[in-house]
Every structure is written in structure tokens, then in C-alpha cells.
């Protein structure tokens, strides 16, 4: 529930403080980038709120790194 406060707060903050000057100066690239980041993050927070076991980037990282990590540590023991 509090994450919703965070989401609404973030959107509100971005739209009131950062977006108007960019709209005035017509910087389309930055506006697109900001909206992309905000949408990705909102999607991420939705998965956190609604999924029971949300996807974990560290697990993906672990799958890639663990062989190399195990090899490195076995060098040292």
C-alpha cells in the first residue's frame, strides 16, 4: 500500500517539477526517456505488489555468475 504512495508521489513529483520545463523547451528525447524509465519502474513495482514470487534480477545474475564465483573461491581454499 505504501508503495502506491511512492509511485503516485514519484509520478507527481516528476510531472510537477521536471516535465513542464522540458515541455516548454520541446526536448522530445528527454521526455521519451523519462516516460520510458517511469513506465518500466511502475511495471516493476506492479510485479512486486501483485505477483507472489516476483522475478528477481539477482537470481538471474546468480545463474550467470555462480560458476565463475565458485571457481574463483575454490582457487582460494
Amino acid at each position, binding site marked *: 500500500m505504501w508503495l502506491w504512495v511512492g509511485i503516485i508521489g*514519484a509520478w507527481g513529483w516528476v510531472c510537477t517539477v521536471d516535465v513542464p520545463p522540458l515541455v516548454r523547451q520541446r526536448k522530445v528525447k528527454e521526455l521519451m526517456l*523519462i516516460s520510458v524509465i517511469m513506465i518500466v519502474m511502475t511495471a*516493476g513495482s506492479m510485479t512486486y505488489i501483485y505477483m507472489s514470487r516476483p522475478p528477481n*534480477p539477482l537470481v538471474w545474475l546468480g545463474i550467470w555468475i555462480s560458476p565463475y564465483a565458485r571457481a574463483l573461491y575454490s582457487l*582460494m581454499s
Partner: protein
Amino acid sequence: MVNKDTLTVRTFSILVIFFTIGTSILITPAGLALEAKQDGWLAAILGVGLNGLTVLICIQLGKRHNDKTLIEMCHAAFGKWAGNVLGICFVLFFYLLAALMVGDLGYFLTTQNLPETPIEVLQIMFVVIIVFAVRAGLVVYSRAAQVFFPILICFFCLLILPILPKISINNFEPMLEYGFMPVVKAGFSFSGLQEMIVLLMLYPYVKKPASSNGGFMGGMLVGGIVLIVTSMGCIGVMGASVTSNQLFPAYVLAKNISIGHFLERIEGLMIFIWIMSIVMKIVITLDASVIGLGQLLKLKDTKPFIIPLGFGIVVLALLCYPNTIFIQDFLSKNWAPFASIFTLFLPMLLLVVLLLQKKKADDHPVTASIDKQNV
């Protein structure tokens, strides 16, 4: 955009000290005591030495190209495409690092101090402060670091001095009981938590006198000493087995403070040290990733992106750290090798490539003048 030569050497050293202390002061004694048992302090010294190696590489990179940040160095070394890929990897690493540290702090407060508060609230509050600081700019948070530094020293002395009488030398014996290898392993895990490479993004903004190395090494040493003292305190007061069982051993150490038998259990005040150092570390890391993003995408003004990226940090932290067991597991098994790719191996590669490039550039003018003479 900040001008070059904004930070003095002294300010940069203070930033380095805060960065080194960062989250490490809270979580490293556990990992050290787990691997090296009572030789954890030796492992800490070794880890600080390993960090020194990293810092040397950073200083060499900084000396040769002292007006370029890390991303620009990637571009210079590997050309546009490969340099961009490498730059994206670095920026994502910094971003992940910031998210993990926010997660660390959230779990620290939720498990130790404010158990009934939802973790998102604590993390959001924290990130709001950090976003304010990064939006205000490098000049502002470096000034704030100078204000925080005496407070940090004060509180740290308040932490360490009362527990010195409680240290028992028995907890350090026997030394090197299991040989030197566990010490090496623990030292390597220790150094994986410092990630000094992030500071290379801020190195161009430091006023560098010709002779010295910009306070980098000195700051790292001071921070390292703080960490070594904390580890020694933890192992000395509580013993290696208790220390290795804790998630946040320094907090448990603070519970042992007893001044005159009336000022006790002031660990709630000591969290100021860790909040301060973690705030500064996350501010520097977030600033580094924002600067990196700006340089990758050739953006002139990166201020509008700080709020979305800050919001993303909270989300990433919530996703990455589901529970404390996972944190312990990941940090002890996978983090140090992963971080060492970015803090040790890639910078070494960059340095070697840049050195070779410079040599080639040095060779060419000679051949050019020979050609002229022949003609």
C-alpha cells in the same frame, strides 16, 4: 554541468572516506568472521591492501586521462560501439549497487530498529533524501560531507572508546589457526564490498595538484582503518562465532556500549553513523550512474532523470532482496567475484588498453618525422 576543479583534494578525501565506510562498516565483520574466524582482522587488513591495488589502478587511469570520466575512458579505449557496451555495463552496475545498498539499509532498519514499519516506507524516505541531494549537485553534497565528517568522527569515537575495555585478547587467539587461505578468501570478499571504482566517475572534478594523487589513497586508508578497527572491535568483544552469526555485527557491538553504567543501550543513536555513511555512498553511486547515463546518451542536463532513477532504485531494491537469508547467501557466494569484474579486472583491462594506445600514439610522431626527413 559542474566545472572541472570544483572539489579540493581535502573534500574528495572526505568523500572517499565516506564511500569506503559506506555499508561495509555494518556488514563486513560478519563475512570476515565467518570465513577467517578469529583472524578476521588480518583479513580486513588484507582486504584494505587489495583495495589499495584497486585505488592505484584508478589513480593511474585518472592521471593519464584526468579530464575524462570512466565512461569517456571506455569510449577512448575501445571506440564507440564496444565502449558504449562497456559503459552501459558500468552504469547498470552502479545502479544495481545503489539499489542493493538501499535494500541493505531497509533490512537493517526493519530487522533491528523499527520492526513494525513496512520496509517500503523506510526505503522511500531514504531515497527522497538521496534524490534531493543528487539533484542539488556535487557541490552541495560535498559540502554536506564536510559537515558530516566531524560528526562521524565524534560518533565513531563514542562507539569505539567505551567498548575498548571489553575487548579480550583471547578472542583473537590462536592466530592463523586454519592457515592463510581463509584469510585470503575473507579479504577478497571484504574488498568486494568497497567498489572504489565508482569514485572514478567523480575524479575529473577534483582539483589535482601535479605531484599528489588527489587524496584518493589517503581517504581509502583512513576508511580502511575505520573498518579494521570495527572488525577488531566486533571480534574482540563478541568473539568470532557470535560475530559471524549476525547480519549486522556493528549494531550488536553498539549494544555493548556502557558509559558509567548509566548511559547504556544507545545503539539507537549509533545508527546515525551508518545512516550518514550509507546516505553518502548511495548519493555518490546514484550521481555516478546519472552522470554515466548522461554521457552515454549525450544528454546535456541530467537533472530531470534523477527522480525516475531514484524511484527505480526503490523498486529494484524491493525486487532484489526478498528476505535476509537470500541477502546473506548472495553476498557471501556471488557478490565479491561479480564486483571484482567491475572493480578490478575491467579497470585493469582499460588501463592496459589505454597504455598500449598511448604507446602507439607515442610511436607515430617519431615515424612521421623520419618520413619527413626522408622526403
